[in-house]
């Protein structure tokens, strides 16, 4: 633009200052300090903190709990993200057909996106209550189950309850994003395919999906990454139980840090989490680059 070099430098610095300051003090420093703490026995319950090398990591990696928690997190978040992506996309397809009155449906479903997690959590506890819950009532009335299911006492069922909660809360967002992506597809392409005699399913498979796939995968990935941070539902509903079935990585790290006050050990969990993310990101980038070539 028209600003001279110096004025531009001053102006840009001013614009970036607040964000960079916030990020440096409250993200970069905590991250670096967290990695440092993972090599110590830091805890507010100990008067002295000392470096203990890799002890925290050895403890974690040799402990079956950590692997269990990692597996459960990937399971719960992976399944729920995939499911919400698919359902959200299908809904978007249905709404994108240009049927009259669909905006009402879109608006109504999108409201679920702002239901606070805490409200959804309490609600889930009531829906899946083993004695008076409406889900058990319906299942028994329709003859699908003979006995009431104790949803929160069985590991697999508790995981299912979490997954359903995550999916319910995520579908609206996926739907809106999918809809936007679908509406971004040039109409001519689809019309040309239709004139060539391609059926709806064929058009979907060879035109629509390839065009929106990357956007949706990226959004799904972002959503999964955010879900890894979410602890309201497992914390309030099951405290991570039964056994560790609903303990996600963030709940595990949180409990280590702020219930057992083992800052060092919890930092090691966080650092490993960071390492996994890095590895994952590198693989993802490689795949993306290969596909483009």
């Amino acid at each position, binding site marked *: 633009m028209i600003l001279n070099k110096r004025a531009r430098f001053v102006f840009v610095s001013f614009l970036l200052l607040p964000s960079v300051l916030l990020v440096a003090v409250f993200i970069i420093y905590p991250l670096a300090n967290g990695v440092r703490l993972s090599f110590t026995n830091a805890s507010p319950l100990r008067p002295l903190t000392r470096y203990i090398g890799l002890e925290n990591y050895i403890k974690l990696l040799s402990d079956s709990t950590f692997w269990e928690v990692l597996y459960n997190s990937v399971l719960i978040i992976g399944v729920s993200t995939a499911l919400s992506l698919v359902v959200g996309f299908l809904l978007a397809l249905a709404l994108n057909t240009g049927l009259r009155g669909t905006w009402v449906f879109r608006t109504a479903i999108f409201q679920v996106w702002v239901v606070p997690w805490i409200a959804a959590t309490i609600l889930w506890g009531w829906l899946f209550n083993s004695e008076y819950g409406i889900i058990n009532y319906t299942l028994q009335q329709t003859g699908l189950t003979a006995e009431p299911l104790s949803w929160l006492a069985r590991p697999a069922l508790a995981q299912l309850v979490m997954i359903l909660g995550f999916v319910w809360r995520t579908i609206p967002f996926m739907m809106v994003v999918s809809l936007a992506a679908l509406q971004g597809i040039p109409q001519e392409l689809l019309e040309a395919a239709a004139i060539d005699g391609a059926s709806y399913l064929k058009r979907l498979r060879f035109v629509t999906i390839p065009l929106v796939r990357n956007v949706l995968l990226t959004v799904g990935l972002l959503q999964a990454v955010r879900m890894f941070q979410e602890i309201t539902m497992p914390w309030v509903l099951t405290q991570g139980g039964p056994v560790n079935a609903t303990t996600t990585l963030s709940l595990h790290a949180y409990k280590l840090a702020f219930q057992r006050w083992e800052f060092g050990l919890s930092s090691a969990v966080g650092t490993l989490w960071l390492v996994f*993310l890095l590895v994952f990101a590198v693989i993802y980038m490689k795949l993306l680059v290969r596909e483009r070539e």
Partner: protein
Amino acid sequence: MRYPRNVAGRILLYVAILFSLIAMLFPIGWMLSTAFKPASEVFAFPPTWIPANPTFEAFRGAITGPLARFFLNSFIVAAGTTLLATFSGALAAYALSRFPFRGSQSLLLFFLASLAFPLPLLMISMYMMFAQLRLLNSFWALIIGHTVITLPIVVWLLKSFFDTLPREVEEAAYIDGAGPFHTLIRIVFPMSRPGLAASSIFIFVTSWNEFMFGLTFTSSNELRPLPAGISLVFLQEFQYRWPEMMAVATIATIPILALFLFFQRQFIQGLTVGAVKG
């Protein structure tokens, strides 16, 4: 003609949409239904879908006690966060959109990546810092924490938005001799209302929703936001008094829902610009 031409296909589609709508909204309906039931009707067999004797009893029970205070706290924190995050995020986004420099792409990527950083890991050092600065148990701890988790999205969203604005208007302002600050505040921001509204709503909703910081950084009812307050106070007191619990859940949902319904169009516009382009 994008929709199915034959009537049967159209009906089938409507039925499918209607079915998904019922499935998605059923939990909310059941929440409202329970919240308006008297205690005796909750465990009735078979359950009543619509309360036979609707009552506000549960809401009365829920709002005695500190709920109003939690509400206010959440509002203060969400408003403070919205201002801080929008302000700093909008400035950075404008710089990244209009004055790209060497490393600006990396900076943008870093913002995106920071969304994935393990929160508990960040919280440990934040906790120690806040303890030393005596900011634990203050609104500041929450406002800063919530700003940190929303800032990256705000920068992305607003950068995508600024990218769509025509530069000519700004250039004309410069030619007329306006300074950069003047241009930013008088020209750019007023043009960016939809984008700013979308990011503000996003921040507000995220802050209203946030649980972990509220649980950890506050230790008195005068400061606790809604989610932490509900889980600490009401779940203990109201356990298994489902109408009251559902009333609490309803009260926590209503204001944010109202806000959202009101600004929904701007929000979806702003959001999809960011999501699809970015």
